[in-house]
């Protein structure tokens, strides 16, 4: 039986929260702005009205304390989902996340558990600048005991959110701001097995593109155009960050002749792509037949000025160029780039977006 509907990524999150609130009477949804009229970019809309102000609530500006309070509530049997509108704010709560949430089950010998979801949003927007658009996923993905998921597709957003909430461990759920606008299918009866490991977003024969979050969308754009030019790209989405599915990448590489491009939405020095590549080399030394490449952001904070957004953020064009270089087909670059070009500035995900967030 299938129950497939098309919706936006943001709507999928909302629907997952809705379904989970209905399913788990002990679930709480809490965060700055959760019940306000802007409803965290629409993702919490109507939930307070439906489930009551005791379960769907705002909170004081106290990220570390409130994280600890949610951990305490989780220990007592609640199932809190704590939302930060930007991952930058979660930096205030690293103490509670790393010292407590991630370790609690372990350090008390399995006697206690912390079913806690932390929703954080990364990514660009209108000149969010150095303190409001960091890409800190790798920092959190290296903490033993903390699960970190970063879904790309609309279907994954729905199902991984449900999974995260049902999980009896702390899960950091990372949404790229620009994914909220993307539309796709949600099949509520999708088998759970499809949610583990990396996700194969597109089959291809010439090269493996292992991508993260919004860069998977860019990778798909590039792949579509490259296909028209006779280049077949396989896109693997690395949605589980604390357990990178290198086996999946290796088996793709076996098909594509060991040619690998990694595309991440983070500065190079903060890219979890390094961990992916290293683990691949350690576990599947012969999987690479050619020099791999990593596309990431420059190694400095994000400047606010929209004039440099296009150059700061790599996208489908940079991915396509790199693919063609790896495949030694740079003669195609010019025409592929021409096909890819859009006149939408890179500080807007689509025409409907007019800031100021």
């Amino acid at each position, binding site marked *: 039986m299938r129950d497939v509907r098309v919706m936006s990524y943001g709507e999928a999150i909302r629907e997952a929260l809705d379904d989970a609130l209905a399913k788990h009477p002990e679930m709480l949804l809490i965060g700055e702005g959760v019940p306000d009229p802007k409803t965290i970019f629409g993702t919490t809309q109507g939930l307070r009205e439906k489930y009551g102000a005791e379960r769907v609530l705002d909170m004081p500006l106290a990220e570390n304390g409130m994280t600890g309070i949610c951990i305490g509530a989780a220990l007592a049997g609640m199932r809190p989902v704590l939302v930060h509108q930007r991952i930058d704010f979660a930096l205030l709560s690293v103490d509670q996340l790393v010292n407590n949430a991630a370790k609690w089950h372990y350090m008390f010998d399995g006697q206690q558990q912390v079913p806690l979801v932390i929703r954080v949003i990364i990514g660009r927007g209108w000149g969010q600048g150095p303190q409001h658009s960091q890409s800190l996923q790798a920092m959190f993905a290296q903490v033993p005991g903390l699960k970190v998921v970063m879904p790309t597709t609309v279907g994954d957003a729905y199902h991984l959110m449900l999974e995260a909430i049902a999980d009896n461990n702390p899960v950091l759920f990372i949404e790229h701001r620009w994914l909220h606008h993307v539309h796709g299918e949600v099949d509520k009866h999708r088998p759970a097995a499809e949610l583990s490991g990396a996700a194969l977003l597109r089959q291809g024969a010439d090269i493996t593109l292992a991508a993260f979050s919004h860069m998977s969308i860019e990778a798909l754009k590039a792949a579509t155009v490259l296909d028209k030019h006779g280049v077949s790209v396989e896109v693997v989405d690395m949605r589980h960050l604390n357990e990178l599915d290198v086996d999946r990448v290796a088996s793709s590489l076996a098909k594509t002749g060991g040619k690998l491009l990694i595309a991440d939405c983070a500065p190079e020095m903060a890219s979890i792509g390094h961990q992916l590549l290293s683990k691949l080399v350690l576990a599947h030394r012969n999987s690479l037949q050619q020099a791999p490449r990593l596309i990431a952001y420059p190694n400095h904070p994000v400047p606010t000025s929209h004039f440099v957004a296009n150059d700061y953020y790599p996208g489908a064009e940079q991915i396509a160029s790199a693919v063609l270089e790896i495949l030694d087909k740079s003669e195609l670059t010019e025409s592929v780039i021409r096909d890819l070009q859009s006149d939408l500035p890179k500080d807007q995900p689509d025409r409907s977006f007019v800031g*100021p967030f």
Partner: protein
Amino acid sequence: MTAMSQAPADLKHLYYQMLRIRRAEEAIARRYAEQQMRCPTHLCIGEEAIAIGVCAHLTTQDKVFSNHRGHGHYLAKGGDLPRLLAELYGFAEGCCGGRGGSMHLTDLAAGFIASTPIVGGTVPLAAGYAWAEQMKKSVTAQGGASAAGGRTPGATNVVVIFFGDGCFEEGVMHETMNFAVLKKLPLLFICENNQYSVMTPLAERQPKRDIYKIAAAHGLTAVSGDGNRVDDVYELAQAAVANARNGLGPQFLELHTHRWPEHCGPNEDDDLGYRNPGELAEWKLRCPLLQTRQVLLAERLSNDAELAHMETKLAEEIEQAFARALQGSRPTIERMGQHLYA
């Protein structure tokens, strides 16, 4: 204009300064719709009296730190208007070279050190700056340096931190107050209590009790006042600045006020219904400009013609500031790669 007036309260001057912030903010709001200032922008319309009433007592040697809602503090402290606007547009000539936008302002020459948008982020920085000022003074005092600007010998520069009621919920606030009292820092905490954090009312975030009384319990000299009366703010700040300057330790003012526009962006948003019905309208009646204008006219300290002249003068200044800002140049990504390290 200078924000460094040491003269006794000249209400007309204070009015002019407030009006300047108001008109600049309105102009920003108007032009924001052109989608060329592409960064989150938090306007302070309705809250001008606090920045002006406090900064009136500061010299350029005194320092100010601020938060996401920093335009008014920046201008009140003497920050350069064209460079603020250029920053909003993302030009290389902006006060942060286009790196920060509205939420990151600086004008070192004016003594406006910085505003940044992580709520609470600048609070301990201000204390650290005040601590350094205090230590430096003790060094120059030994060297026999003279006290500046008609101040008592031994007086120090002061540092001011502006922040909101929401910020008061952050733990770092309390860590900072504790240290400030411990070291008797020449530091002023100015809490702009506008009752909202984004769209969340105070009652969903804090219990019913006074913010300034917590500061008082920490050991600060703390009072509250009407943040929409520039004369009140001026008076409270006068005492507080003098105390801080003269070694009486950190001071805390909780000033009640209200923001008129939406939390972030150029528009009003009363239609969203998160404010109590009639709340905004009532606060508009308590507009700091309106109230001051009434006094100025009632007490014949000014007249319609003079007030109209102020408007013209400011309209010109702001017009020119935009013109100047708009001549800015686009920063390149290469330039943006510089200054990662000092």
